[in-house]
Each structure stands twice: as C-alpha cells, then as structure tokens.
C-alpha cells in the first residue's frame, strides 16, 4: 500500500459493535466492559473498578465475542463490527463455577457482609443462588493481621483481585502493598511482608475502599475522638457535597465526621493551633480573622550617639516600609477567600469549607474562626475530606463558589495582575478551572509546550529544572504565586518542571486567555516580563555558580544554596560566645544565632539565617507570610501568626520565634482587651541599622565574618583536585 493510500484512509474515531443484540457506538479504544456499561448493559465483575487500570484476573466479567475462548471484557477492547454476548447460559455457567471456587475460600459471611451487607462477592454469589459451594474449603488458614489501628486485614476473605494493590500503588502512589507467596500461600503483603501496623502504610484507606470483600475493613477511627454528635451516613448522603460518595465508606468512617454546634461568639478554631480536621458549614455564618498583631519585627537604635542600644519591636507596614515590600493587600488563609490587609476579617457562609490545608497536610491553622451567628458545622478527618474532595458535585460547588467569591480577590492579590479590569475578570470566570494535584504529582513538565498559566490557590509547588546529574530546585511557590508565564512570553516550551509538594490546588488560565490578557493589558505584560527576566537571570546565575563550583562538600553542606553566611574562623575563635551575646543583646535577649553548625575547612558555618536560594522555610507557611525580597533576603510579613512552621522547616534551625508582649482583643469576649504574648518568626536581619552585624562587630578576635560563600571560599574552591590513582 502506498503512503498516499494510508494517508487517504481516515482513522475512525468511533466504532460500532453489537452487544446483546443492541448496536452501540463507542470511541475507539473503549473496552467491551465500558462499552456495555455506557449503554446500560451490566456486566458483573470483581477485580475491576472504574478508577483503576483493568487487569482481568477474576474473569467474572467474561463475555462471548464469538472467539474460541471467552474474553475478559474489562481488558478486551471493543472492535468495529464485533458481536458480543454478555448473558448466555454457558457464560452464566462459567461465572457460576468461578464464583463457587471463590466462595469455597471465602469465610461467608465475611466482616464486610456482616457489617454493611455489601460484600461484592457474596452479593454476586447470592444472585447466582450459590449457598454451599461444591468444592472443599482450604485446610490451611491464611490468617488475620490486626496490627494496624485503622484497618483490619482478613487474608481469609481476600480473593486476590489486586484492587487494593492498584489503589495503594497507582492511585495513592504509596507503594506499600504488593503480592506475596505462591499457590495456597498467595496473598497481599505490606512492604517486605511486615505486619500492616509496622509497615510504611499511611492508613489512607484507599485499599479498604477498593476491596470488594471483607479482606480489608475499617477498625473505626482509633485515637481520635472528635468532639460532637455522630452523623448518620444517610444524613450525609442527602447533602449535595456528599452526593455519590460511597455509603459504605461513610458507614465505615462514622467516627471520622461529627456535627458540631456553636453559639454566636464561640471560637471554632484558633490560628497557629495544630489540628487534623476541616470544617464544612451547614448553617450560619462565621467570622474568619487573624488576631496576631499585623506587624513585622524591626530592630533599630533606641537612641542616637555612642551609647545607643538596639531594640526589637513590632512595626506595622505604615510605620516601617521595607525596601522591596510588595503592594500586596491580601493575606492568603486556609479558606475559600483571602483576608484584606487593612481589614483582617471576612465571613464564610453555609456551604463553605475551611481548614483544608490543616486537614490534608497538617499545617497549623491559618486563622481564627468565630461563630458570627449560631452555627452548625461538620468537622471531618482527612479520609472523609479526601473522599469529599474527590466527589464531583462537591468539586462543582467549590469551583462555583471560588469563581463567585474569590477569583477576583485572588487575581487582584497578585501584584502584577492588579490592573486587570472587572470585565476581563468576569470573562475569566467562565474560563478558568480549579485543578487539584496530589503530593508529588506533576503539574507541567520541562520541555512540553505551554498551554496554560497557573495561579497557586492552595499548597506549595516545587519548580525544578532537569540537569545532567539530577534535578535542581529553582523555587517553591506558595499560595498567591503564579507560574507558567515564561514559556508564553518567550514563545518557548516549558523551561522547568512544576510539581505539587503537598495537596495543591491551582487556578488554570487557558493559554488563549492568557495571550489575550497579555495583548489587552500591556502593563501586565510589562510587569510579567520584568518578573520573568528576574527569574531567568536568577536561575541562570545559580546554574552558573553550581557549574563553576565542583566541590562536593561545599554542595553537600548546602553552602551553595546560601547567599550570606555567618562563618567563624575556628583557628581564631576562642569560643568566648561574644557573638551570641551580642546577637541576643541586639534582639531583646533572643539570639538569632547559635555557635554550632557544619564545618567547612577551618570555618564553622554558624546557625544563622543563610538567606538560602532554596528556602525550605517558605514551604508550609499557612498564611504565606514568609517570602524573600529580590535581594533573596528572607523576610517575614506582618501577618505572621507565630505558628512556628517556618522554624520547624528550616533545615539549619535558623529561624527563631520571638515573643512580644501585646495588648489584643479578647477573641472570647469581643470588645475587651487583654494583655498577651504573641510569637513572631524572626531570622537574621543583619542588624541593618548598622554598618556591620552585631555578632561580627562584637567579635574581639576577628573570627566572625558575614560572607558571600562563593566569593569568600573562592580561593579554596579553585584549588585543583589532586589526581587520584596513577601508577
């Protein structure tokens, strides 16, 4: 056949076949199982479920396609002109034999059948009137595993369908479950056949909801006693947000969701607290606000002249404007809306959800929530929220609410997009899409064509570039950040790979709309070009430095990531701790440096902010209050709630929590003021009011230096590596 002949013959996009005498048309590539289901023809199955790749191990879904043997419909693709029979007498006989064999090994009724009556195997067996299988039962027991607090494992009830394995490995990417043994000893195994409780299982429950029998069942939510009234699953299923959720799952997780009632003025949750639950408002209105003082830590002279002394205090933005402060006027919180900077309170109403990030990623609460009216809420644990978020009707509601209430403020909160007109934002409302990514999931890949621009709505995104020898992290983007513009502006492919670090939700603006935005709003284009140029230059500088510094130790200690280091020359340092005393003296007794850390050559890299180029401290801030200036100096914004997440995340222990006495509104008694102490995160500020940091100034032995690592260590790094080996 000539190539023209091939080109002339169009490839069909859909095919027509006959199932049980009914002609059906389906897209090319559809399996017979899906083709039948799409046309209302039920085909029984055990090992297949819609969200997993089919494997065809149970053979219960066999159909007659006119071939020598019956085909497993879940994996056999439909073909044009195919005649399929799903319900003939011989087929019924084959299925019956299969079910009898499976039931011979099944402890009927299994735990699931006893509890909720929906064991899929036993339901099929009952439909086929199989009460007593003619085959003898196995004599060797396969055992139970009750080591997990969350999930009970009954190997006896396992039919080796592998649904749990696929759920664990391919849906959750946990890679804990696998097969073990052969023949009678075959079963599922956790890690290297560890007891489930000792394995790396994270108890996400995916295996449990995937299991068609009672092999994996819920043991109840142990260790977490939610305060409130238990909710009937039927009540939940009546709510639009739980529509189509598995009743079995809700039944199994009765303890994981409760209904709570709050009177007007009651506090529902407080900022900075650690928690593991999210709240869905059933009735009423809540106020959501940040009660921490809206100020950053400023250190300056308390007087002039020689006998001056440094003093740290809280300075709001209007009293002290820092160079490079963005004109950002909204505070991102763990709710569908942002808080305005100048009026730090907003309201949430019935049908809205808050506390998602706390629940999914265990971040501290980002804001205090108080009942504005009498309120009824559902408080739920992670497994219930996860199921809810996967629910289509909830997603639609969330999407609708976001577009109505938060899209405009979200776009306006991004300084470079602040000049968009209301008309254009209205246009975007019908175009943008909210997309959720699981931890580790790739959002866009380096080298692929650009089709969208993204705004981060929830979570943290890692931007990395593939290099010979491994990936290089370029940035971490928090809520309010954006990515994907460089490829559009430069008409190139993606220059980096963006991956979800935790549970991430992004606002996707299609490429056509983004291009239109660039055309219609030249100032937006101009600002984006400036930011893109800065990002490209910073990345390039970083790559150049890394390529020019071949010293492993330098890289291993993360010194390459630092742009400013406090180093102590250990050959000169007499360990007198004057540097630490000076730092404490300069910051109200709270030292921001510890004379401890890694060594590089004769230098001690003291524990003091390194202004990392890869600032892990920025990952996880529930209110996005830690950022870096264009100079790469890390600064803490006014709306820091003092939760300490950044201090925990800093791999070098270089962020300190500084207590300040404040007078603040009593959240429990509106109108009253109380004396309190609030924490604010602080890092090294280089004592910017002075020519030299206090630690360096106070060192009597010229041992302390604040340095730029590549410059300071240049002479050492340029030393040629001695040749190894040689004869």
């Amino acid at each position, binding site marked *: 056949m000539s190539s023209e002949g091939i080109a002339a013959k169009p490839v069909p996009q859909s095919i027509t076949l006959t199932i049980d005498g009914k002609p059906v048309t389906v897209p090319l590539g559809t399996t017979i199982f899906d083709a039948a289901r799409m046309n209302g023809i039920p085909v029984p199955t055990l090992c297949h479920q819609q969200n997993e790749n089919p494997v065809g191990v149970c053979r219960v879904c066999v159909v007659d396609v006119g071939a020598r043997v019956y085909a497993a419909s879940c994996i056999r693709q439909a073909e044009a002109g195919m005649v399929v029979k799903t319900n003939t007498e011989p087929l019924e006989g084959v299925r019956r034999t299969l079910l009898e064999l499976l039931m011979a090994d099944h402890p009927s009724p299994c735990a699931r059948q006893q509890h909720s009556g929906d064991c899929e195997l036993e339901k099929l067996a009952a439909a086929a009137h199989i009460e007593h299988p003619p085959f003898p039962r196995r004599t060797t027991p396969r055992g139970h595993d009750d080591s997990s607090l969350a999930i009970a494992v009954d190997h006896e009830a396992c039919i080796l369908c592998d649904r749990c394995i696929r759920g664990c490995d391919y849906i959750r990417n946990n890679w804990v479950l696998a097969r073990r043994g052969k023949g009678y000893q075959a079963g599922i195994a956790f890690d290297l056949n560890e007891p489930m409780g000792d394995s790396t299982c994270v108890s996400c429950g995916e295996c449990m909801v995937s299991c068609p029998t009672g092999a994996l069942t819920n043991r109840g939510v142990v260790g977490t006693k939610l305060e409130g009234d238990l909710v009937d699953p039927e009540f939940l299923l009546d709510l639009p947000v739980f529509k189509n959720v598995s009743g079995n799952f809700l039944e199994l997780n009765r303890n994981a969701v409760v209904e709570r009632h709050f009177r007007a003025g009651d506090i529902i949750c407080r900022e900075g607290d650690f928690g593991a639950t999210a709240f869905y408002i059933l009735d009423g209105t809540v106020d959501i606000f940040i009660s921490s003082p809206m100020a950053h830590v400023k250190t300056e002279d308390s007087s002039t002249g020689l006998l001056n002394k440094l003093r740290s205090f809280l300075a709001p933005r209007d009293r002290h404007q820092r160079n490079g402060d963005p004109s950002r006027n909204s505070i991102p919180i763990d709710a569908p809306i942002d808080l305005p900077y100048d009026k730090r309170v907003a309201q949430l109403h019935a049908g809205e959800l808050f506390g998602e990030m706390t629940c999914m990623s265990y971040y501290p609460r980002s804001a205090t929530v108080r009942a504005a009216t009498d309120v009824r809420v559902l408080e739920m644990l992670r497994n219930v929220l996860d199921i809810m978020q996967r629910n289509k009707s909830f997603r639609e509601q969330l999407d609708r609410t976001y577009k109505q209430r938060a899209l405009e403020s979200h776009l306006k909160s991004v300084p470079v997009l602040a000049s968009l007109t209301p008309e254009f934002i209205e246009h975007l409302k019908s175009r943008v899409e909210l997309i959720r990514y699981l931890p580790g999931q790739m959002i866009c890949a380096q080298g692929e064509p650009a089709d969208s621009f993204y705004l981060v709505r929830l979570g943290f995104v890692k931007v990395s570039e593939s290099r010979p020898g491994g990936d290089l992290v370029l940035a971490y983007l928090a809520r309010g950040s954006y990515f994907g513009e460089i490829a559009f502006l430069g008409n190139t492919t993606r220059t980096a790979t963006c991956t979800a670090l935790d549970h991430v939700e992004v606002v996707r603006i299609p490429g056509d709309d983004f291009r239109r935005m660039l055309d219609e709003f030249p100032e937006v284009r101009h600002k984006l070009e400036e930011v893109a140029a800065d990002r490209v230059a910073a990345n390039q500088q970083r790559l150049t430095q890394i390529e020019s510094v071949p010293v492993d130790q330098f890289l291993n200690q993360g010194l390459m990531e630092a742009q400013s280091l406090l180093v102590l020359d250990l050959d000169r340092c007499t360990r007198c701790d004057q540097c630490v005393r000076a730092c404490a003296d300069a910051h109200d007794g709270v030292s921001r440096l510890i004379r401890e850390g890694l060594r590089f050559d004769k230098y001690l890299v003291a524990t003091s902010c390194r202004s990392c180029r890869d600032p892990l401290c920025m990952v996880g801030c529930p209110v996005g209050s830690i950022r870096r200036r264009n100079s790469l100096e890390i600064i803490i914004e006014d709306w820091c709630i003092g939760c300490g997440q950044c201090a925990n995340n800093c791999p070098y222990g270089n962020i300190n929590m500084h207590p300040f006495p404040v007078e603040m509104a009593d959240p429990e008694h509106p109108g009253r003021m109380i004396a309190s102490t609030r924490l604010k995160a602080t890092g090294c500020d280089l004592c910017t009011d002075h020519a030299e940091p206090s630690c360096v100034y106070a060192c*009597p032995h010229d041992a302390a230096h604040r340095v730029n690592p590549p410059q300071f260590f240049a002479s050492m790094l340029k030393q040629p590596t001695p040749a190894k080996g040689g004869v």
Partner: protein
Amino acid sequence: MVAAVAYIPYRHSSPQGASGGSVMGLIYGSFGFAFMIFAGLLGARKKVPVWRLGRAQTWMRGHLWLGTIAFPLILLHAGFHFGFGLSRVLMWCFVVVFVSGIFGAGLQHFMPRLTTERIPMETIYEQIGRVRSQLVDEAAFLVEQARAMLTGNLSDASAEQRAVAAGAGTMGGVTVATGLNVDEQASSDLQEFFDRKMRPFLQQAGARRLELADRATSQAMFRQLRLLLPMNLHTTVDDLENICEEKRELDQQTTYHRILHGWLLVHIPFSYAVLLLGAIHAVVALRY
C-alpha cells in the same frame, strides 16, 4: 621606645636615682596607669557588645598593646624597684597580670587551632553534659536492638536488622528471626560489656581512669566484641565505638576549654586588684 630613651638622661640626672615621685616618674606612672585602665575597660566593653564604641577587635588590640606597654612604663615609673608595702604588693600583682596576660594571649593564639584540629565533633561547651546523656541513651538503644536480634525477637530490632533477617516469621504473636542464629550468650556478653564498661565511661565526665578513655585500649576492646558478635551486628559495634570516640572528644574539649579560659581565673581578679591598688597607691602617693 621614647619612654625608654627618655629614661637614660632622667636616670643620670637624678642624684638619688629614678623615683616615682619625680616629674618624670609621675609622667611614667600616669601613662602606665591610664593604659592599665584602658586595658581593664575591655571587660566593661564586652558587657555592652552592641554599643557602637568601636569594634571589639580594636578594643582587644588596644588591650594587648597598651597592657603590654603599661608594664615597662610602670617599671620605669618605679625605677625598676618593687618598693615596699603597698607598692610591692601592687608590683607583684602587676607581674602576675602581665605574665598571665602574655600566657593567655599565647594560648588564645594556639589553642583554637588545636581544638579545631583535634576535635572535629566539637559542640557548645555548656551543652557537653546534655550531649553526654544523649550518647548514653543512643548507645543503650543500639545495645537493646542488637540484643533483640541475638535473642531472636525481631519486634524490638531495627528496620535494617529486620530486613537483614530474611526468613523472619511469626510465632505466638512475636516476630522471630528464623534466618539468624540465636545466641543468648553473646547477648548477655554484650549487655555486660555495656553495663560494666561503656555506660560508666559515657556517664562520667572525664573518666580518664576507665579503660575506654584510652583510644588504643578501646579499639582492642571493640575488636574483641566484634569476635563475639555475628557479622550483621558489626555495624552496631562500629556505631558504639564511634559513640565512645565522640565521648573521648567531649572530654578532650572540656580539657582544652578549661585550658583556654582557665588562665582568666588568675588574670581577671589580679587585674581588678591592680586597678584598685593602683588607684589607692596614686591617691596615697600624691596626697602624702
């Protein structure tokens, strides 16, 4: 140098020899005492490290140079006589301050380099006690895990050790290493070594007289321990040996730190004494 040159004509022109009460003697004394006061102010300067009164390094240089110059000035002031009574006490105190200062400056020049070279796992001096107790806990945990392997009870063994124990199974609810040789004797030997030799060494600061304080003896003891234990526990023995090495370094750091800062116990009190007695001497000499 100028003072020394000026001393020669001054000494020859004075019929009764150089005297502290003469004009030149008073000039020498005044300058010497002023320099001593400046040198003494370094301590006060350190109390206010963030006051911008000049870099601490400058003050330290001034302390060293002026303190050093003050000594010959005072000798010139006294005409190289130590005098009697208060003057004699004062001069001897000053000698102690001067000698201890020179000694201390030498130590501060030499000891930091030695500390850096010999103690790679140096920690903050004040935290040595805490680090020591952490080492005890860490070693006890390692021994417990190793004994779990030796008694066949994998439930208390580390994940790495469990992975090594291929063929592990469950008997009576306890995970048992069927692939390993259970060795109760080795287990009790290990526990005895830890209880009798290692724990006391780790718990006791200094502990110079204990066997593990000596590196060569320690190496020999751990070599012996390796012979007792199966191959798969040799990494645990390595860890235990490293813990002992870290403890030896902590002890060494304590010693070095005391040497590095111990001289100040002499230098500072005598400096205060010199300043106080010097002031009394000046008042008494000028008034009477």
